[in-house]
């Protein structure tokens, strides 16, 4: 169906391309759901139980992997922001926005699962440790991105501001990643490599644990962020179409 207004034609019927994209997205979603189930199987069944921590250690497969997913999603924001500043194509800004939303969800999962793991291991839900503090700052920085976007009326200004902000916000992700290597006073254990001297709750990885971590890293840093970002982009595409229709109705 087409509607004609002010010499402009808006095609609202789904195109062959959009139908194909929908089918591909549905297929990817199905594969992601299966991948999540496989990841959980490896985390809950295949991986051996840690003798010192008990079953709560299994949270670590999601905790670590969800941060990797957030890293990828926020990386998408950097790519989207830089590409928008170069090309001025709004599609790149949509990618940047989708990356922030999905990254924030994954970062929040990382933060909450870490807090739950800490309760029996550190005997507290929260402590102002350098890693935990930088992680919280990272989440707040990206939450501020979403709030600040809402406050800018002009679309071009909003996109330019968001692009620059999204690129610089990635510094908080890098700091969160490396802080346990540069701050010896942290109690947060390192998963890969030597833990800081004050680390509490560290553990040695057995072969089954490494396998479970590897599987979940792929699930959480590839399948989940890509699928969620694609769904979020689809929403943004629809929002752009509604906005275009609204302008045409107002002009007619």
């Amino acid at each position, binding site marked *: *169906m087409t*509607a004609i*207004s002010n010499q402009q034609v*808006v095609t*609202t019927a789904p195109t062959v391309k959009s139908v194909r994209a929908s089918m591909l997205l549905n297929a990817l979603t199905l594969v992601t759901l299966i991948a999540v189930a496989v990841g959980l199987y490896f985390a809950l069944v295949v991986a051996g*139980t840690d*003798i*010192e*921590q*008990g*079953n*709560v*250690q*299994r*949270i670590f497969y*999601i*905790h670590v992997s*969800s941060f990797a997913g957030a890293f990828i999603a926020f990386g998408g924001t950097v790519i989207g922001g830089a590409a928008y500043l170069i090309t001025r194509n709004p599609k790149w800004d949509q990618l940047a926005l989708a990356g922030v*939303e999905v990254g924030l*969800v994954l970062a*929040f*999962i990382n933060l*909450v*699962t870490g807090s*739950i*793991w800490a*309760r*029996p291991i550190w005997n507290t839900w929260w402590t102002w440790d350098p890693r935990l503090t930088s992680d919280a700052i990272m989440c707040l920085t990206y939450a501020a991105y979403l709030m600040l976007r809402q406050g800018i009326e002009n679309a071009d200004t909003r996109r330019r501001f968001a692009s620059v902000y999204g690129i610089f916000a990635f510094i908080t992700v890098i700091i969160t990643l490396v802080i346990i290597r540069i701050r010896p006073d942290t109690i947060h254990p390192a998963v890969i490599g030597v833990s800081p001297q004050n680390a509490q709750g560290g553990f040695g990885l057995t072969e089954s644990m490494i396998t479970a971590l590897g599987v979940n890293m792929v699930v959480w840093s590839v399948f989940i962020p890509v699928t*969620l970002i694609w*769904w*979020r982009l*689809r*929403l943004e595409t*629809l*929002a752009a*179409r*509604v906005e275009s*229709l*609204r302008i*045409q*109705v107002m002009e*007619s």
Partner: protein
Amino acid sequence: MPETTDYLFLGLGAVVTITALFLGSLTLRYRNLRRDAAALEEIMRGD
């Protein structure tokens, strides 16, 4: 070995809840936009 299974389930519950909230928010926003698009198309058809 300490008994910490309750915390594992609490963590899994938190993951499910956060994910469900995000997916619910996506679905709700998508539905609202579809409704808006349909209403705007209706107005344009009437013009």
